[in-house]
């Protein structure tokens, strides 16, 4: 019984780590068009750096999530915390690294 509960808790948290389908669509649109206004629609870079996987693989996931949520001082990167949860930022990072 204990195992079952643990397993359930794990699967619940795994499910919770994915935004729902509608939100995924919104996040994808946000990535292409809003992040894209500085990083390019194809994420090849613009005023902001390229977000293609090859440029991100050597960076720590936690650092990338932190950059999305808090922004980067001294650059044009703003904090997206008011609009994106930590879990959603993780999802975006995973998507970028794919």
């Amino acid at each position: 019984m204990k195992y079952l509960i643990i397993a359930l808790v794990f699967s619940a948290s795994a499910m919770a780590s994915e935004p729902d389908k509608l939100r995924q669509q919104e996040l994808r649109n946000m990535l292409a068009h809003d992040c894209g206004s500085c990083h390019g629609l194809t994420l090849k870079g613009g005023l902001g750096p390229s977000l293609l996987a090859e440029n991100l693989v050597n960076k720590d996931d936690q650092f990338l999530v932190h950059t999305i949520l808090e922004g980067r001082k001294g650059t044009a990167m703003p904090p997206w915390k008011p609009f994106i949860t930590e879990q959603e930022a993780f999802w975006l990072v995973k998507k970028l690294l794919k």
Partner: protein
Amino acid sequence: MFKLIVLSLLFCFNAHAELRATGDLGVVIERAKGSALIINTSKKNILAKIPSLGDLSHASVVFSRDQRYAFIFGRDGGLTKIDLLKDKVAKRIIQAGNSIGGAISQDGKLIAVSNYTPGGIKIFSAETLELVADIPAEYGDKQLSKVVGLVDAPNNRFVFSLFDAGEIWVVSIKAPKKPDIRKYKNIGKQPYDALLTPDGRYYIAGLFGERGLALLDLWDAEAEIKRILPDYGKNDEKLPVYKMPHLEGWAVAGDFMLIPAVGQHEVLVIDKRKWTLVKRIPVIGQPVFVMARPDGREIWVNFAFPDNQNIQIIDAKELAVVKSLIPGKVVLHMEFTPRGEQVWVSVRDDNQLIIYETENHQELKRLPAEKPSGIFFSSRAHKMGL
């Protein structure tokens, strides 16, 4: 036989009826698909769609002085010359890896493109798109800076700003193969865009890395860079900017000029005789475009995420917001007809162009467009700095 002659005469007339003038045409960018629409502002319709223009996620357009050709500058370094009479691409090249905008010279013979990668500008023949000059934006220890705010200026010059270097360069192209470059250094941190006044006299770069703007008087060969509004909003918290404002055109009302603040939800009113701040007009969000109707009577403002469903209209007499509109999801650009009776608005996520009558702010018509962004009318052909 007679019948045949009549018929063939009819065909001739018909062919004449299809002649097209270009003074009331325009180009609308469809950013996600990489296509452009050719539109007519008198008939308020779409004439043609030109596909396969590459990455147009940040695109701008200039027009040849005969208003026959539109030159589209794409994000991916694509430079495309569109024939507005034939609805087709006349010539297309990829001239850089990552690019931001362009300009056409005073005499209409040269096209300059500003590039992020490799940082610099390249100058092309407007006729053939052959490379005429390559000017890397080199600074410091052989680094290349991203180039922004490229405009044409009188006496066949191009003026632009170096985002990473904090410099303004003036290039004289009288001998295009040997361009004469004048560099102004330490103009301020991170110039993000610039504008030229309609008389071609002042070049003004907005700064992102610090407060204020950098002003260059192009009438005075000895002029130094003058910093204006260095203190605006210095006691206020700087708000996050989710999209860089654009300095395009010049919103003028009498002796006043209106520009977007950076990191404040305000439109700034500057007295252009003394270059001092007259008023800060509160608005709903971070302004992106602050565009004056051609007669200067009112100024239309759109906004960065998350307020980008709105437009606010500032009255030039009252210097205050007099009307707010909610055109729809993600208003990206606005363009006035040459004498300003209409304004066309692109609404990205609703896939619509909305045409408003400016006298009463009523919607006149909607046209379908796929993720429309920049709107550019051929009347720009005869305006300096656009």
